[in-house]
């Protein structure tokens, strides 16, 4: 009887933990596929697209997550395979440095202009 209970609890726990990790993986899979561009579509993410390309990408992502690869590793894999175009979040490198800092520079410059024109008289 005791054995049976232990067995059942263990079974229950494995099912629960399995379904929890499944749900977690599903979430991660969605997150990653949202941040990847579907290369054969017009401006759609892999997540939003139902093209053959996107479907096979999703399967690939799923496999990679199940293999235990981290989110970063998966992005890096796709980047080396397909180039920067596939990532919705551009990496910080010499090509994109201005993309990232130019708005900030403008913001600071705007603040300076406001200060100079209004309060320093």
């Amino acid at each position: 009887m005791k054995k049976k209970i232990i067995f059942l609890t263990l079974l229950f726990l494995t099912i629960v933990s399995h379904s929890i990790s499944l749900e977690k993986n599903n979430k991660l899979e969605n997150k990653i596929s949202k941040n990847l561009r579907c290369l054969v579509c017009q401006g759609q993410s892999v997540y939003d697209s139902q093209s053959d390309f996107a479907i096979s990408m999703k399967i690939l992502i799923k496999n990679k997550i199940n293999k235990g690869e981290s989110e970063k590793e998966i992005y890096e894999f796709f980047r080396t395979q397909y180039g920067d175009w596939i990532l919705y979040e551009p990496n910080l490198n010499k090509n994109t440095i201005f993309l990232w800092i130019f708005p900030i520079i403008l913001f600071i410059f705007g603040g300076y202009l406001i200060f100079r024109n209004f309060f320093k008289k």
Partner: protein
Amino acid sequence: MIYNYLGNYSLVFCLIFSLIIFFLCFKSINDPRKIIEKNIFSLLFLQLLTIIISFFSLIILFVLSDFSNETVYNHSHTTKPIFYKISGSWGNHEGSLLLWLFVLVLFIFIFSLTSKKHPKKYRIFTIIFHEIIVLGFIIFLLSVSNPFNMNYPIPYEGLGLNPILQDPALAIHPPILYLGYVGSSIIFSSALAALVQGYVNKNWASHIKKWIIISWIFLTLGIMIGSIWAYYELGWGGFWFWDAVENVSLMPWFCLTALLHTIIVLEKRNILKSWTLILSIATFILSLGGTFLVRSGILNSVHTFANDPSRGIFILIFLFIIIFLSVIIFFLFQIEESTSRKTFFLSKETSLIINNWFMMYFLSVVLIGTTYPIFLEVLTSDKVSVGPPFYNKLLIPFLIPFFVVMAFGPKLQWIKTKFSKIKYTNFFYFFISLAASVFIIRYSEAKYLFSTAIFVTSFILLIKTIEGFFEKKNNFSQKLSHFSFSIFILSILLNGAFSTEFSANMKQGDELNINNNSIKFINLKTLNKNNYKTVITTFEIKDKQGRILKFNPEVRIYNQPEILTSEADIKSNIFSDKFLVVNLLKDDGYFNVRYQVKPFMSWIWFSIILLTIGGILSFFRKI
């Protein structure tokens, strides 16, 4: 057939009238006789008439499915419902530009009707600048995008309208958005005219404010309708993708919103003249630049439906002419800033200027994010994508101080507010907000510190805007708009924090359990409709409490052109939207099923409508 000629020749007449108006305006500047002014006015009316005839000719061509017209042939089909035949007339490039021109001419006519108490020369100059834009568009239409090109021999059947455009929301989306865009053209020409005439003052501000509000209302509504459409038709539950075409409509919105606030400073304090003019000009240039980006097809977007490079070049040249013209005029006619009293840091002006500061920052993020990949590709031939993570990272942190300023700014007085006037109740608000935020964050999976900060500030904003309703100051429209904006922000945040989704591949008869919900694929049936075949599926979803909801998402197979679309089934109530969408998979009988629960979805739309109601009230406000 006859309507082709009618439409085409009335466009030609419109061009001629435009030239005559142009000529008469210059004549009237040095000629005080009233009769010329009257002539200009009647010519504006005639011009409006020609464009109405032209526009309705196109609609009639679409209704009759007259395929001797190339535009109709390319974008319509006999089996299309009548409603979409009509909306199809502006759902394409040529027709939408004709609509643009129609609104341009309509607005200048209304402008000349409603501006009679303003100086004559200012009005004449506005008409001159506006007719330059009108001329540009007529030439554009007649040269490279004529909606009345003829087909010979006449085809029996048209190519059909892209089925995802066959939708009630998208039928009204372009006209409303265009009213917003084109409204900014009136602001543009009147700003240049005011500059030339030295009429940039309080009078001008309160006069042009009405046009700013009108454009702002339509632009806001237009963006919203587009977003709703994307939510149920295009998106798999998303409503904003940071897609290039969406960004293009958002950019003039930021500029216009900044202008909406600056014009108040000009109206009340008679300062910030140059800045107001820069914003007025920039809004229109962004609208025009947006049209260029969308129509030229250099953007990679979900919303790119038709494009042609030669048209892009035309708009680009036109855009440069307009920019060149406004820069020259801006530097030729210097404005004298009135040397009014000193502005103190703690004042309403400061908060409005800070509003502008942030709006310009948001604008620059979106502008750079949208155009940077284009420039990079031209210069280095490297392709990068700029998507949602970029915008989230650069925009959201800046929202925190923005909300704080927005919460306290409207409470300040003009010129100077004493620090001691700030009440201690604010500390109390802060703690309530903090408690609420911590409570929310605990139940979501958001990042702790950062999300808490953003939730706290938006709750403070909500509380302060509610507090505003109990104050005596009689500015209901502003209070309502700010209140709805805070609701809007909170709904988006809560929606983001608590949305859940699940996707799986299922076939008929399958049942799945996720988080105590069960999804059951009951059956499917195929129906033949007039212009499409549809597969209607039935799902049952049992939630934690055992309530059963039935969903009937569809997959449609349109005949002309042959395109598959998914029609989501959305069950909305006050608290959340339940969203089920299916898609055909290649494996026999299997469907990709995606089920989402999205809390506060309808609040997002509702708050935007409330926001525009605030705008409408402000429009009818006296003073």
